[in-house]
């Protein structure tokens, strides 16, 4: 499962930020995930429980904030939501769209002591 390498990266990013802040314990890691990224939160948490053992992030909860997919329509100039990965403007039906949200995948914040 590719969730493993991704989980390792989440751990590294969280540990690095916590260390910089002089934190002693990471309680929670908030991840912003676009609707169009294919990670299964449950697997990521399970892998995380394993790879974080013995670190200050052991036992931390991963929270996934879902970001809906949207795009800028070049035909009508407006922002439109995207459904089911379809590049079709909900306002004017145009298909000349530039993706603005939905492919994000980042560690947004950590909660530490």
């Amino acid at each position: 499962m590719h969730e493993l390498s991704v989980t390792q990266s989440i751990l590294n990013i969280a540990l690095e930020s916590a260390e910089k802040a002089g934190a002693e314990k990471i309680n929670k890691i908030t991840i912003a995930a676009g609707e169009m990224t294919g990670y299964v939160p449950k697997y990521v948490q399970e892998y995380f429980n394993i790879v974080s053992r013995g670190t200050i992030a052991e036992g931390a909860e991963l929270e996934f904030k879902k970001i809906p997919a949207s795009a800028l329509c070049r035909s009508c100039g407006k922002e439109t939501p995207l459904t089911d990965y379809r590049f079709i403007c909900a306002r004017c039906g145009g298909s000349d769209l530039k993706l603005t949200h939905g492919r994000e995948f980042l560690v947004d914040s950590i909660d530490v002591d």
Partner: protein
Amino acid sequence: MEIKVVHQIMEWNEDCSDKIKKDLREKKVCLVNVMGSPGAGKTSVITSIIERLSDRFKIGVIEGDIAGKIDAEKIQSLGIPVVQLNTDGACHIEAMAIDNMLPDFDLDALDVIFVENIGNLVCPAEFNIGEDFRVALLSVPEGDDKAAKYPLMFSTTDALVINKYDMVDYFDFDTDRVVKDATDRNPSVKIFKVSNKTGDGLDEFLDWLGKRIEDKISA
């Protein structure tokens, strides 16, 4: 206490992918990421590409598919430099794996490297591997609902080869549906109906492919 982080999780892979792109641009080598299910015809189509485009381009191949060395040996027998990735149990190729393989090639003697990604319609699409463009294969026996079911693969590819088109009458395969599902998600995708067995449709695909490679290596 909350600390704002805002750090891309895929950065390790993206950075490596960018490095590969830069290295290959200097060497004027084009990298093509070939994706699709096990059995869709990736090795067969790469073999046809070698047979038909070798007089125009110096070709190398990276074989990521898990099934032992069968595919790599097939390609090696055509006199093409090929490197087999050891991806035991892996479900996709990451940029780092490609970066580690490139020193095995004489890049000065190559124009294009085809990477046969691991047979899987899901996660290979998530990982850039330094490619200039992507080719996704969907074979007729897999069914006409796959572009809708695996949207990321079909929304990120530059070309979609609908392979095994010689089988189209046996599988109730609704080509229009696939074309619509793919273009709705990816308005600029180029779609080719190909039978690698009879050769039908290969010319159109190879024309497009040859132009894309040409553009890259003459840039």
